[in-house]
Every structure is written in C-alpha cells, then in structure tokens.
C-alpha cells in the first residue's frame, strides 16, 4: 500500500513533466519490461528498443493511465504491444527475430536421449528457442504473455489489438507446436 502511494506521487509528478519522477518509474519497471520484450523478440537489442518505445509512449500517455489500475500492468500492456509490433514487422520483412538463424536452420536435435542433464537441458532449451522461433507473432506473443507473464486473455487481446478468442486459439496452437517440437526431448528424459 505504502509503495503504491509513493508510486502515485511519482506518477503525479511525472504527469506534470518531472523527468526525475519518471526516471524513478523507469528504473523500477525497466528490467521487467526488458524481460517481457526479450522473451517476445528473442534478442537483447530489440528488447532494448522495445523498452525505449514503451517508456516514450508511457510518457506521452500518462494522462490516459487510470489511477485505479496498476502502473506495472499498464506499462506491460504497452510493452507487449510494442514487442508484438516489432515481431510482426520483422516477420513481414523475413528477418530473423531471434538472431538465431543457425539454431533454426539446423534440424532439430537428434532424438537420441542424453544421459547428461546439462546436455539434456541445453537440448531442451535449444528446442524451445527453435520452436518459439517457428511460431507466428500472435501465437508467440499470446503464449508467452499468458504462460510466462501471467496476463489474462482479455489483457493480451487488448494489448495486441486482437480479441480474446483469437488469443485463446493462438495459445492452443502455440502449445501444440511446442509439444510437437519438444516431444522427442521430453520423451527421452523419461526412458
């Protein structure tokens, strides 16, 4: 409660144009925004661009922020939208959003299970990244925002300019694709 009151004060000062108050908010929420953006875009360079875009938008739209909602939820919705836009833009241009062309170009790892847990972990991680790379922008964003960031279907739909049913279907398709990609590795872990 006390922290919310402090944040309310910072928001009020930021609304009146106080850069230092806004900087406090950026410092407090920047890493969480970076993490969200990194998961969706798949690389640090794009994630930092999303952080920039998110906070510039927030600065311009502070008047639209409603005090009864949480600032962190609001800023995450802006970040989700910015990251999704970037991902869509990259896909339209057939660029590699994850910077993992090598990972994606090579076939999925061998189906031979590894006895070494570290190697196994790497294999799963590699498959996760490759599978995420293959998802469409809406599938990838919806899945990660729901599964990792804990946003509701409605919040995701609002953030991405979609509707909750489309988001729900995207999450289901994403899990189906992830399941197909990970099945060999996960099956190998339970001989």
């Amino acid at each position, binding site marked *: 409660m006390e922290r919310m009151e402090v944040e309310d004060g910072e928001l009020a000062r930021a*609304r*009146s*144009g106080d*850069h230092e108050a*806004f*900087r406090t908010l*950026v*410092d407090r929420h*920047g*890493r969480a925004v*970076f*993490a969200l953006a*990194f*998961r969706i875009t*798949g690389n*640090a360079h794009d*994630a*930092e*661009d999303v*952080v*920039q*875009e998110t*906070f*510039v*938008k927030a*600065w*311009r*739209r*502070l*008047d639209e922020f409603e005090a009864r909602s949480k600032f962190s939820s609001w800023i995450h919705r802006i970040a989700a939208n910015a990251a999704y836009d970037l991902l869509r*833009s990259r896909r339209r*241009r057939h*660029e590699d959003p994850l910077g993992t062309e090598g990972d994606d170009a090579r076939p999925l790892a061998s189906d031979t299970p590894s006895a070494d847990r570290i190697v196994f972990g790497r294999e*799963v*991680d590699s498959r*996760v*990244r490759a*599978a*995420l790379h293959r998802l469409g922008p809406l599938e990838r964003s919806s*899945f*990660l925002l*729901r*599964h*990792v960031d804990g946003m509701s*279907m409605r919040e995701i739909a609002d953030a991405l300019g979609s509707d909750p049913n489309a988001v*729900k*279907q995207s*999450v*289901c398709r994403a*899990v*189906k694709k*992830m*399941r197909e990609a*990970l*099945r060999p590795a*996960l099956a190998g872990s339970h001989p």
Partner: protein
Amino acid sequence: MSLHLDDDALVLHATGDVDDPAAVEAHLATCAECRERRAEIGGVMAAARPEVADPGADFEARTWARLQPALGPRRLRTWKAPGAWLALAASLAVAFLLGRQFPQAPLPAPSPASAALDEAARERILLTEVEEHLERSQRVLVAASHAQAPGELEPARAVAADLVRDNRLYRQTALRTGEARLVDVLDELERLLVDLSKAPEDSPATDARALQGRVDDVLFKVRVLGARLRGRDPARPARVRPATS
C-alpha cells in the same frame, strides 16, 4: 460424443482458462489417457520458459541516457479542450491559406555547404525534418478528427494531401537507404494521410481517439528512432540522406 478431452481443453486447463474446470477435472480423474496427455502438456509448458538475458548492471543508466532526449516536454491533450482545438483548427485554416499563397518549396538540392556536413549531422537533420513533418501531420490529423461541420474538414484535407507528397519523399529515402523501421512508420502515416485527404467533405466521422492514438504511435516510433540514430557511432557511415527527386 467424444470419449476423451480434446487438446485445446487440456491446454486451456493448463493455462487456467478452460470454461468448466470442474468437468475437465472430473474426466481426468477417470481417464488415464487424458491424464497422460495433460501431464505431457504440463511438461511442455514447464520447459517452455525461455531464458532472459541479463541486460547488465548499467541497464538503468543506459536506458535513461537513451530515453531522456526522446521524452521532450509533456503535452496537454488538446481534444479534451474544445476551445483549444477550435483555435488549432482556425490556425490550420490560416496556415492552409498561407500555404496557398506561398507554397512550400520542395526539398532543396544538396548545396556545397550541406555536402560538407558530415554524415552523422545529415542523419540528424533528416530525423529532425521527419519529426517536424510528423508534428505537422499530427496537428492536421487532430484538427480533422474534431471537425464537426462540413466546412471544417476542408483545410485539413488539403494540407494532408500536401503532407502525403512530403511523406512519400521521406519514405522513398528511408526505403532506398534500408531504414526498415522508419519505412514502417512512414507507411503507417501515409495511410492515415491518404485516408484523410480522400475523406468526403461532409464527413467528420473520424474517430478522434483512434486517430490520435494512431498518430501518437507514429510519433513515438520516430522519437525512438531519432534517439537510436543519435546514439549511433559517429564513425559509422550514415545510411540516410534526403532524396532529391
């Protein structure tokens, strides 16, 4: 009637979004096959949490150093003040008439002096021009979005048509020089301006908030681009210079 739950129901159960969780759980209690599939989905989701890179100890300082120049002063929302937008519409009408008397000159050809400017400086100039162009566009679009009578839209429509031409020039430059994100931004703006320039004279039906939001998005993106270009290594050859056609 299906004997088993479909995959979507199991996925939505795993995410906590299934419509009737009690029914799903009752079925899972009696169906080993569905329990196995549900467990597999749970395993996939547990694994599908991509690692996030550490942005570094200087992340906050770095972020603010890039962000601060892009912030600028806070602005009041003019659409909430009818008097303010009416004044703006009036000034736009004057600007439009002046524009007819003294048409805006085309972009100047590079002079010897400008040719002597270093590449980074030219980048900054172009970005400044683009940003000013977007500011002009925003003013036009805001005024148009608040037009309430048939005659009020006309000045903004005409200015928008002029801005479309400038916009195409900037977009061509950005396209030629490979500024993909700038191209995206200008594409978006061009669609807005074209829509406005072709709007029926007696139609003030543009959604003010939606339009303002679209214009704001364009401005935000350009400000971020500007900050990014200003942060470029000055030794790096510039990739953007104004088109001359």
